[in-house]
């Protein structure tokens, strides 16, 4: 029963896929092919990421994270969060587990949000590719506006989410 509850979304989608397969065979087969490709892609990237996370968790002391990304890290924390996010690669959901460890290690809430924002919009490899396909004016403008935007969004969410809720999020990762 607990298993069913945990996998409710997955089971629901698979049932939906089967219904589509029964009504439209070609579309259904394509869905199954694409879905299994997604899983294979994930299985390729996920093991090293989680391995790094496990090592990070054990080796990097909480004090280090607090010093550079914690409550009193100021501008350094903001710049470092942007840099960490921008240096990354991969889809945004790859950032969630990393952000989880950062929360656990005492990084400031707004810095976590800046990290997520930078990961989603400022990635350097993607920026280079964007310049070549959409032109430098488009790419550079977007990059500059996004830097300002993600900081503002992070500050806003930081204000709107109260301490009790932050405590709850923190507990999710320390339990």
């Amino acid at each position: 029963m607990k298993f069913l509850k945990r996998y409710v979304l997955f089971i629901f989608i698979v049932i939906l896929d089967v219904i589509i397969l029964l009504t439209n065979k070609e579309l259904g087969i394509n869905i199954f092919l694409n879905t299994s490709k997604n899983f294979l892609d994930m299985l390729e990237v996920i093991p090293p990421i989680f391995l790094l996370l496990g090592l990070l968790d054990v080796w990097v002391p909480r004090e280090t994270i607090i010093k550079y990304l914690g409550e009193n890290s100021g501008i350094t924390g903001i710049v470092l969060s942007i840099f960490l996010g921008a240096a990354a690669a991969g889809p945004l959901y790859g950032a969630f587990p990393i952000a989880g460890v950062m929360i656990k290690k005492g990084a400031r809430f707004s810095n976590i949000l800046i990290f997520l924002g930078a990961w989603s919009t400022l990635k350097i490899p993607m920026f280079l590719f964007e310049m070549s396909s959409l032109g430098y004016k488009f790419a550079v403008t977007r990059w500059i506006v996004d830097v300002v935007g993600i900081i503002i969004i992070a500050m806003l969410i930081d204000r709107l989410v109260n301490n009790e809720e932050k405590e709850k999020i923190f507990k999710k990762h320390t339990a």
Partner: protein
Amino acid sequence: MFTAVLYCISLSFLAFSFFKDKKKTKEALAKCWKSFENILPPFAGVLALIGLVLTVLTPDLISKIIGAKTGFLGMFITSIIGAITLVPGFVAFPLAASLLQKGAGVMQIAVFISTLMMVGLVTMPLEVSYFGKKTTILRNLLSYIFSFIVAFIIGMVVS
């Protein structure tokens, strides 16, 4: 390529860690497995959802919808498509470039790119499991609104 580098880095860290402290390395591996096991249920759900949505909404279909509409309605449509789908940048940028050549507006494309990157409706269950409902909804909502601001500014600079 990226994956190969990632494997090299993490495996060499693992070897280094093992060399320095076996007990700590064991602990790290246990933590690694536990965090993976924790996240697997919503992750599997999201991957299945992406498989379903991206098959039904082909780039072809997306391009038809964007190409046909203009103005604010066009932006609204592209923003919704961008918010739902999760096309990797390496697919999205060439798609956006070809749409621009076919006469789609810069603002429509800009809002599409921005929501594509920042707003993830299909990954929301996963995000909630990490950051809770309120933060997730706020982040996605504010990013959605912000995408329009980015698009207007890009529209002014580029055209």
